[in-house]
């Protein structure tokens, strides 16, 4: 019988939530790596027992953990992320040059086909790859070496590479996103990259239509249509139908188009989800009502999903890596909040229930659908 395993990274440890395919009753294990920030955990699509976790702290820096048994046991693997060559500078908040320096791993993206290959998106923004199950890491320097690198600036959360999308139809194509540089694509396995930000409009930068400098919060794709991308930008929800060559706004009737997460239904490529957040200064839902918005038309026309979610006095945030979708026949949608709740909907967003209510602030949510 099918089951699901939800991997939750929090401000003070990791939690693993498991359920059968009904997704009504849940077992909670954790905290794992108690006291450490777990920015992200993700399982290999090629081997669901192979998990990777990014564990870090202000005291002791970065640790990468690997599990070969679905999270029952873990072992630390390599944690050295050395930039290739001369690190150089990017822009600091005030526009002055600032040396590139490793801070932490924001996102781990295992290969679609090889459990031992995994990509890491780090702060200060760069893309690394390990081909030996996390023991050693090598930068893909063509990204940071793109001519625009010295003009990248950090967002409020840091200069972080937070989104890595692997094209299931083309192993040489990847998409990444950086706050606040924008989105980039490679068509040659990571050797060279191009900015894919045409159509983005960001009023908070000197040239709102600049080639780079956009604060992309998250991107998502459906594996059956890897040329169609969805983006939650700092403000604006966007869509590209040509692999990022150009973007159109699809915010439509959203109550606010600020937010962090965006994701796609497992079986309906035109059904997408966002969680509108009031503004960049007020990181909580509008009107104190926690609502997921769903579009079944690929954007522009959105419906609020609120059944089972708090509809008064709710002032949590949903961070960029904190939404996930399972692939059961009745598609499950999950998200975590900075208030420590993890909500699940076993019916594509129509009804919600909390799996847990009182975890530390949730930084990331991933789900594995297990047979």
């Amino acid at each position: 019988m099918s089951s699901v395993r939800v991997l939750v990274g929090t401000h003070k440890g990791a939690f693993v939530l498991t359920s059968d395919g009904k997704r009504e009753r849940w077992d909670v294990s954790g905290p794992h790596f108690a006291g450490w920030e777990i920015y992200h955990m993700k399982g290999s699509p090629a081997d669901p027992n192979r998990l990777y976790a990014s564990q870090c702290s202000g005291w002791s820096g970065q640790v990468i953990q690997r599990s070969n048994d679905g999270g029952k046991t873990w072992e630390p693997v390599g944690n050295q992320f050395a930039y290739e060559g001369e690190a150089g500078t990017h822009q600091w908040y005030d526009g002055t040059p600032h040396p590139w320096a490793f801070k932490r791993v924001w996102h781990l993206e295992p290969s679609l086909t090889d459990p031992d290959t995994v990509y890491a998106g780090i702060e200060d923004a760069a893309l690394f790859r390990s081909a030996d199950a996390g023991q050693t890491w090598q930068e893909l320097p063509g990204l940071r070496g793109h001519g625009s690198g010295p003009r990248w600036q950090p967002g409020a959360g840091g200069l972080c590479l937070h989104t890595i999308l692997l094209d299931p139809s083309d192993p040489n194509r990847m998409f990444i996103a950086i706050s606040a540089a924008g989105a980039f694509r490679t068509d040659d396995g990571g050797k060279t990259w191009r900015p894919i930000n045409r159509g983005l409009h960001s009023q908070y930068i000197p040239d709102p239509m600049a080639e780079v400098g956009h604060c992309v919060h998250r991107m998502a794709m459906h594996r059956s249509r890897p040329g169609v991308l969805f983006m939650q930008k700092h403000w604006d929800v966007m869509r590209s139908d040509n692999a990022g060559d150009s973007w159109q706004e699809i915010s439509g009737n959203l109550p606010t188009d600020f937010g962090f997460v965006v994701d796609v239904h497992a079986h309906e490529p035109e059904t997408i989800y966002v969680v509108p957040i009031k503004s960049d200064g007020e990181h909580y839902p509008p009107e104190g009502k926690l609502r997921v918005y769903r579009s079944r038309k690929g954007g522009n026309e959105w419906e609020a999903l609120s059944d089972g979610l708090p509809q008064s006095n709710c002032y949590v945030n949903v961070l960029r890596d904190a939404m996930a979708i399972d692939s059961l026949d009745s598609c499950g949608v999950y998200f975590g909040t900075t208030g420590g709740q993890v909500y699940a909907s076993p019916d594509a967003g129509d009804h919600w229930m909390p799996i847990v209510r009182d975890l530390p602030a949730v930084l990331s949510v991933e789900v594995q659908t297990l047979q």
Partner: protein
Amino acid sequence: MIRVVLPAHLRTLAHIDGEVKLDVTGAVTQRAVLDALEAAYPTLRGTIRDHLTQQRRAFVRFFACQEDLSHESPDAPLPEAVVKGMEPFLVVAAIAGG
């Protein structure tokens, strides 16, 4: 034997119970002790000092014999009481909330 006391979160990370006891050959300095510690527990590499620069991490301090040795040269000899194993070398994480 050189005795080293680690903060609780690093003991947990490296599966260490209690004090660490290390054989250090040659001059007993911060660098020599940390080299021996990381050789015995590779998981600790990068958690006390930076991989590349070998600089002490900002929220970590080194103490021994009731003295703060954090700003001593990593190649300065450690106190005799540490060398003789009478006092431990303390790796201390900053007291901080959050």
